[in-house]
């Protein structure tokens, strides 16, 4: 790292896929879906982008394909969780495995070789910059949508008490599925950034746990889009710092653990109290624990 400017730009590059994924995670969790399939959504996004760019020669079409792939994967989670009552963690784990296995198989089918794709037409420096800007614009837009629009209100209500949403005459299943669709689109773009923005190939395992780091960013950002984007930016800077510190002899494994330690700190109240949406990860037909027992709510985390 030669200059501070270089460090900043590397931080932004490292942060961008995390920002997209963290925004996706935030919108899901605010609606009550704990989306651990983000890792899978990044994977299928990265893969679809490269595959379509390879087939059509157009990285822009590749980006669209990534959006669709992300949506397909996350919507599956939303539908499984709301319509079929599948446990969100189980469904998410299954989708992650499906994404990993499906893309490994897809590499062989599309490119005729395992492990990694050949080089394809990438988005280029201009496209990369545009996506970096888009990530942070998306954070502001999503914050406004959540705070100010009818849909945002319904999402927030759904993550706290879906029964109240139902008695207000709105189908909470629909709200949750829509949230997973939006999340899938965002995570798909994040995946495309990894393969077509930063690089010009897809390789197995290239997402390297970013979907889970994004979930940590959601917590560290206290379940708000701007907070999550900020946390993702900080984690991006950490990973840029790795390159500097590695040279100074700090083991990179320690640096990789930092995002999770930060999330743990946020949860345990070391860095201010964080309070998850009451119905985060709770199936629609169950009453969030604090509703039946208002009195008990006082001894649980309270974010004030």
């Amino acid at each position, binding site marked *: 790292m030669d200059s501070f400017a270089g460090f900043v730009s590397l931080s932004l590059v490292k942060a961008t896929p995390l920002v997209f994924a963290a925004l996706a995670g935030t919108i899901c969790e605010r609606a009550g879906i704990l989306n651990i399939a983000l890792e899978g959504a990044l994977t299928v996004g990265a893969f679809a982008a490269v595959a379509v760019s390879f087939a059509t020669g157009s990285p822009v079409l590749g980006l669209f394909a990534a959006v669709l792939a992300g949506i397909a994967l996350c919507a599956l989670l939303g539908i499984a969780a709301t319509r079929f009552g599948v446990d969100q963690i189980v469904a998410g784990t299954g989708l992650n495995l499906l994404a990993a296995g499906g893309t490994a198989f897809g590499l062989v089918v599309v490119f005729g070789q395992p492990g990694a794709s050949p080089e394809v037409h990438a988005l280029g420096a201009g496209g990369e910059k545009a996506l970096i800007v888009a990530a942070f614009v998306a954070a502001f837009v999503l914050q406004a949508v959540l705070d100010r629009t009818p849909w945002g*209100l319904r999402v927030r209500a759904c993550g706290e008490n879906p029964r109240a949403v139902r008695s*207000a005459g709105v189908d909470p299943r629909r709200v949750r599925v829509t949230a997973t669709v939006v999340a899938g689109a965002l995570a798909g773009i994040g995946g495309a950034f990894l393969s077509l923005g930063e690089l010009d190939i897809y390789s197995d395992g290239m997402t390297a746990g970013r979907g889970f780091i994004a979930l940590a960013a959601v917590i560290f950002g206290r379940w708000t889009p701007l907070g999550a984007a900020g946390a993702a930016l900080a984690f991006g800077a950490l990973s840029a710092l790795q390159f500097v510190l590695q040279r100074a002899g700090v083991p990179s494994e320690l640096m990789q653990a930092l995002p999770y330690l930060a999330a743990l700190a946020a949860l345990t109240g070391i860095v201010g109290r964080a309070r998850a*949406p009451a119905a985060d990860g709770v199936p629609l037909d169950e*009453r969030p624990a604090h509703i039946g027992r208002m*009195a008990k709510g006082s*001894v649980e985390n309270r974010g004030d």
Partner: protein
Amino acid sequence: MSAALELHGVTKVYPGGVRAVDEVDLALEPGEIHALCGENGAGKSTLAQIAAGKISPTGGRVSGADRVGLVHQHFELVGRLRVWENVVLGREPRRGARIDAAAARERVRELARSYGLDVDPDAIVETLPVGVAQRVEIMRELAREPRVLVLDEPTAVLAPVEIDALFRTLETLAARGTAILVITHKLAEVLAHAERVTVVRAGRVVMRSLVAETSIDAIAHAMVGGTIPALAERARTDVVPAFVARDVAAGDGAHALREATFEVRGGEIVGIAGVEGNGQTALADAIAGVLPYRGTMSLNGRTLETLGAGARIGAGVRSIPQDRQREALVLDWSIAENVALGDHDRAPLRRGIAIDRRAENALATRIVERFDVRTPSIRTRAGALSGGNQQKVVVGRTLSGAPVFVVAFQPTRGIDVGATALVQSRLIEARNAGVAVLLVSFELDEVLALADRILVMYRGSIAGSFERGAFDRARIGALMAGA
């Protein structure tokens, strides 16, 4: 005048064959306050859901359900949202793509003015007292301009003054032509405010009357289908302090226990009167040893602070938890396994490193007989029992374990009159035998009926103390509301 809501021969059979509602006819006239009474499990709530179009009947006809608002017993509000957000949820006024927050606030203020429901539109719902939260729920329903408002046990969580305020609101609504259906098992309220009463038992209508032409006794008789069983007599006992709490504080937030100093003597029932959410849960959890607290507690002179939850049970501090399904029973276990829970690690249930199944069965059989648990066998799953029978198992387990001090938290919540009388009688018998009993109940009538001494809890502190013989209902009610 045509009815605002009509039910004709409405029947609801749940999968599994339970006939919750059976051939019910009910018509509500505009502007009337109509009471629907019945015991727990009589089918009242199912009927309310059908009337509001939330569930569809398996037989019969409902007309007018599209204009029914339903106020739930457990409010269906979003605690972390503001009042106005809760009220407009699902029907948000818009300005472009955004919610028109100013219009929404104005809508709330207008509803507040026109129905005398005093609420700040910008308050966060979870910070509101229960009575105010209920106004928000009523307001949300009124925003849809219903012709009928159904309220499911609306007074269960309210202090007496709040109950008066609620009925004033309902009377205003009725005067403007809204039909009101109040579902309740508190009969005094019925007589004070309703014009007509319908009583259901086992899903069927067993009585219809003008309130002016009937009496509490007649309604109670119809609800139970016979006379209400009498309670056990209270005997004279010698009282010595058994449990002493000094400056106990526990929990945090609005429902914390802030400061409690009191004693419970052997052979007396001390009743905690108060509206839900005034620190009772933190108090019970602190005594049970499952919530950290400041201050000191002792039992017969022995300090309790060094004892964990299990050791406290061994020392004779035993609880009837407030939520039998969540805190007391393992629903997938048999009755026998459940009665052993908590005593499994000491004699007589423990033999060496194993649980003595014969002792466990003997205990379960004894409890089933003495507490009249209606079950095919002690091997029956606890989850297969009715609520009343589940509660009898819990109470039986608590009282059979040689208790010195019993905390009974809402011991008769949601169970029928027969089971209620049995549970209350067993508590009185335990008291007569010298056990110290702390009764926590949100039903003032229950506290008045059972307690030798009443402590009123408000906002986490003890606001007043009354000796039996000097119970002052109005004064207690006022203290419960913070007067």
